[in-house]
């Protein structure tokens, strides 16, 4: 039986625009995944604690306020500190292309910019499946 993939969708920092995060959460559920959504205004600490308790396979971060260069790597860092670096972190929102290489260097596995179809996100998740199932 294919493992049930669990994904945490989180909004770090103070940004309150949750239309995108809610859409992704619902669309991933429709794609057959178990999705945990924790609402807006989550600190990186709260996101990581949640990811650990829920033993998710992925954390998806949504942010539109420009604070991604500070907050996304912080989540990756905290996962490492808590021996949870097998959890795959991806991000989305208002993120200029020029910031993407830097984010990936800091451990983000993928960044999905505005207009990315949901299929791309699902393909990415499935491409990681064999890694997860081992």
């Amino acid at each position, binding site marked *: 039986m294919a493992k049930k993939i669990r994904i945490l969708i989180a909004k770090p920092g103070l940004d309150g625009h949750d239309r995108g995060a*809610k859409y992704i959460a*619902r669309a991933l559920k429709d794609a057959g995944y178990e999705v945990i959504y924790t609402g807006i205004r989550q600190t990186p600490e709260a996101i990581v604690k949640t990811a650990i308790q829920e033993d998710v396979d992925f954390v998806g971060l949504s942010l539109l306020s420009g604070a991604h260069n500070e907050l996304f790597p912080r989540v990756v860092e905290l996962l490492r500190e808590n021996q949870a670096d097998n959890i795959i972190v991806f991000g989305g929102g208002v993120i200029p292309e020029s910031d993407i290489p830097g984010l990936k260097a800091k451990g983000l596995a993928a960044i999905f910019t505005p207009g990315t179809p949901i299929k791309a996100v699902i393909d990415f998740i499935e491409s990681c499946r064999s890694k997860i199932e081992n």
Partner: protein
Amino acid sequence: MPTSDKLKAQRQKWEETTLKKVISRNPERKTEFTTGSWLPVERTALPEITSDNEYLERLGFPGEFPFTRGVQPTMYRGRLWTMRQYAGFGTAEESNRRYKFLLNQGQTGLSIAFDLPTQIGYDSDDPLSEGEVGKVGVAIDTLRDMEILFDGIPLDQVSTSMTINAPAAILLAMYLAVAEKQGVAFDQLNGTIQNDILKEYIARGTYIFPPKPSLRLITNIFEFCARSVPKWNTISISGYHIREAGATAVQEVAFTLADGVEYVKAALNAGMDVDSFADRLSFFFNAHNDLLEEVAKFRAARRIWAKIMRDKFHAQNSKSLMLRFHTQTAGSTLTAQQPDNNIVRVAIQTLAAVLGGTQSLHTNSRDEALALPSEDSVRIALRTQQIVAYESGVTNSVDPLGGSYLIENLTDQIESEVWQYLDQIEAIGGMIPAIENGFIQKEIQDAAYRYQKEIESNERIIVGVNKFTTDEETPKNLLKVDSELQRIQIQKTDAVKKQRNNQAVKEKLELLRETARRTEQNLMPPILAAVKEYATLGEICGILRQEFGEYQESIVL
């Protein structure tokens, strides 16, 4: 009166002959045509307002009930809308520079964007402000920042709109303190604070306190300004963000007006007379892509609000019935792909707002799907307004699309659906229970989901995204906010804290706390007193957080 039987019969004849001939060879592109918000659109509309009485009842004349055609008799023939570009980022110095640039380029009003920590009542050195300082707007920690922000800008000569909600009282107090230092009397000040907490709970997320104390702050501001700052628009009841969250045009109007009803009720419950504050209520709407629907939407909104104020709240003063509004073009329609296309989108949306009779307008810049606007981009956005104003001719007559059969049909459709929502919300007990049990959020989310699914399936085309795509280079010259900013801002605020009279600050904060505990007292005077001593935003909001508690998001997925 609906379309006459004679016309209907003729139309049927046309459908069976002329139309049929063409359709059997060349079927239409879709089986059903709808507006962007899924309202049905007729192949070709027929007259529905066919008598003078109907005209007078449904349209009337601009500047008179029901205000369908406009809130002023001359509209843009008398004075163009205010061109008011929302701006702010980084430090007060940088924002001050941008405001001067915009005023030089012909903007006619200021619109201040604050960063998220400021909007949520945190100082720049708060741990929760990490990474957020100065990113989506200017960072304001103390009155000192406000003084810098308006340095060289005479407050008796500009009107200033501040997009601030939960801590609106504090930022207003800072503005008043700056005016005082400039020697400008409060009754000379023109401007607006957004101050609309209900939409924060629904769609925008920068709330602090729970509903009851938040409404108290809002009505305190109404009272204070009615007495001391009479030209100030004390609230900008907003639908923009609700629409951006995915709502339909109908929902945008319905939920915004329902919020308005809630604020009027709150003010009446606080003992105010409706005509003492209602003329200073203003609104803020979205200008979306479907031009015809948008024009109809604005007209319907005016008509409905006038009826609500007259029939539900028995306002006597004609000014109390007028729905005056600011508009912003729809940010969510901008694409990261082929950003220059956004200039065209914004031009169409500008037309929608102007043909719809807006009092003031912000146009988005082409690069805003990616970053805050660069100087070049924001100049083009301003030029868009200026070209429509001076070159397109649409300002020559009031409500130029009035009488278009389709526009009147859409106006009536929207009005009818909005009333249904308003009745539903009333049955639930008002907006606050409707928000607490998630009804409003669910309606919006379902619409957002449907919209997005249509894009994913290519049923709804977004040029450059799911059709007419290109391989493109990433855009250059995007605005970047200096990452050192947070550190610089913290240093500045620390310096202010050393120089101020800390004993006085302590006293004023305690006075604020006492006032907070006495619900019948107005919070503006103690807030103003604290602000003048250079108490920080975080310190003031900290006291209020302790006394009022914090709002907990209630979600329905």
